[in-house]
């Protein structure tokens, strides 16, 4: 089959590789019909996530048709149409029982490596480094899905892939980000980053009862989606001082909750951006937490900071004193996918939400390397690339 593979920092390729096989009793093989490139893939592309190897198959947002199931998978049948979550979960460990599916104890074969970095190992992920399990990803024609009796969500036929595909990651991720804000009547939520995760976080915040959502980015087409499709007030951080503007908009109280949907490759205009860039280039810092710092600073007293944006390592100059003295609550992590997929599918089927609005480009597998480059540079008005097989 053809597959998108990691080749090194800022280099991906398309290679012919063997088709995946069933390797374990709880596996299924899926023929992929649609698969997307995610902001998280950019962190791999940028070389920010350790333990990638040349030749690793990328991709964790995919859906398709069940081709084969191992004997241990009773709930899926050949021909079923499924969306597959990007996290692998066993369904029966301490964390899965508590619906903390992305913290599953049992799906990372390289748990000992993750433990060296983080003390404990989170769940295995598709196409997201060896420390996170080294599972071959889904930017390919076929994929092996382990723990297929717990992960894949069956979806009805006759609905366009683009409406359902984002149940694999970014729609639940935006939703959990908003849920983590513990939104109360009258709340104002500020969202850093109007990429797909930020956009779904805005929509979800309104679904969960937010009064106002203020979205921050600098890319005009993304700010436009935030405003026109998702109904947010917007701040272009290249034109306005974000902290001042948030103060002004909230009458000086600050947002009740802040969402960092930017993650470790934050971009900025000021001296801190130069600082992070220099330090990450020298390998003295692993992440560029520009948005995170700003969100902590901006949040009102007693407010909540929800962090769906991915961080990988050691962060500098985090205003932790501000978080402490304001009595803030911090919530974060990879999304507990299985908790959200079914209810969000229902919202889509009821016509409450149509996630396909984020798609800007539909491409073939062979065009993926070019798409990574464009997505990284935010060129060509891209908001989301979907690969069609």
């Amino acid at each position, binding site marked *: *089959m053809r*597959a998108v*593979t990691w*080749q*090194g920092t800022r280099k991906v*390729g398309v*290679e012919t*590789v*063997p*088709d*995946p*096989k069933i*390797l*374990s*009793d*709880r596996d299924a093989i899926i023929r992929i019909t649609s698969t997307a490139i995610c902001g998280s893939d950019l962190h791999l592309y940028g070389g920010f996530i*350790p*333990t990638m*190897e*040349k*030749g*690793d*198959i990328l991709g964790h947002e995919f859906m398709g048709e069940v081709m084969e199931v191992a004997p*241990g998978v009773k709930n899926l049948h050949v021909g079923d149409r499924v969306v597959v979550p990007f996290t*692998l979960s*066993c*369904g*029966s*460990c*301490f964390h899965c*029982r508590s619906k903390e599916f992305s913290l599953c*104890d*049992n*799906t*990372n*074969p*390289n*748990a*000992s*490596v993750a*433990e*060296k970095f983080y*003390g404990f190992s989170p769940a*295995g992920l598709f196409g997201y480094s*060896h*420390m996170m*399990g*080294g*599972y*071959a990803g889904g930017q390919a024609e076929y994929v*092996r899905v*382990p*723990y297929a009796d717990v992960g894949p969500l069956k979806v009805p036929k006759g609905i366009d892939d683009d409406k359902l595909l984002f149940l694999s990651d970014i729609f639940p991720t935006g939703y959990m980000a908003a849920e983590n804000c513990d939104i109360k009547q009258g709340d104002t939520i500020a969202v850093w980053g109007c990429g797909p995760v930020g956009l779904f976080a805005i929509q979800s915040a309104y679904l969960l009862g937010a009064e106002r959502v203020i979205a921050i980015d600098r890319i005009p087409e993304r700010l436009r989606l935030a405003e026109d499709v998702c109904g947010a007030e917007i701040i272009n951080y290249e034109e306005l001082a974000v902290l001042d503007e948030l103060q002004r908009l909230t009458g000086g109280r600050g947002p009740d909750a802040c969402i960092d949907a930017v993650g470790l490759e934050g971009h900025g205009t000021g001296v801190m951006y130069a600082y992070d860039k220099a330090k990450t280039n020298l390998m003295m810092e692993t992440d560029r937490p520009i948005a995170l710092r700003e969100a902590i600073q901006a949040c009102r007293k007693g407010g909540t900071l929800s962090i769906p944006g991915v961080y990988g390592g050691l962060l500098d100059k985090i205003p932790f004193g501000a978080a402490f003295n304001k009595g803030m609550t911090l919530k974060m992590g990879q999304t507990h996918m299985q908790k959200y997929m079914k209810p969000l599918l229902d919202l889509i089927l009821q016509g409450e939400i149509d996630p396909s609005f984020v798609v800007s480009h539909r491409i073939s597998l062979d065009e993926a390397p070019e798409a990574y480059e464009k997505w990284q540079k935010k060129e060509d008005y891209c908001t989301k690339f979907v690969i069609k097989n």
Partner: protein
Amino acid sequence: MERIDDKSSAIDVAPPAGRTGIHPDLDEGIRHEAAIVIMRPADEVYQFWRQLENLPRFMWRLENISVNSDTLSHWTYKALKDTVRVEWDSVIVQDEPGKSLSWKSVDGSTVSHAGTVTFEEQPFQRGTIVRIELSYNPPGGRLTDFVQRVLGESPQTMLKEDLRRLRWLMETGVVPTTEGQPHGERGITDALNPALHHH
């Protein structure tokens, strides 16, 4: 006996010799201890362990255990990257169903080995803490232990991985694997070092 410090994980710290006090033979030789929580009833984990033939399914250095009677069994162990195979007969010296099990090599074996495993079910569905304590007087004594560490086979780390595999089997029925999955062409450094890169 003095113990070489192993900083590879948080639960590696050996308690004072013979801490559980269940098994006097644990005071001898090189000691290792590890623990894990398994979300199954203590009885069930005990039963799985008591079928000694199951041990090689998660203790991957054990090649085979054949059970000869209710208390006697024959163990075959591979060491030093599979270059050394050691065999001995083992006898169960203490058995409290659902709670603990202890064994030791019979007198006169090339390896003197002793072990205790305890199963402590936690209240409020918090699972069962499985604690294992092992001691070895391997052929070659401490030198072998040292050589094993140099070769990257720290017995302490291995023991922790063994228990993790036990949890995988007990909680999920499978051991997670990527062996045999497709990938593109590997680079030169990956070919030289198929192990993971710890950047």
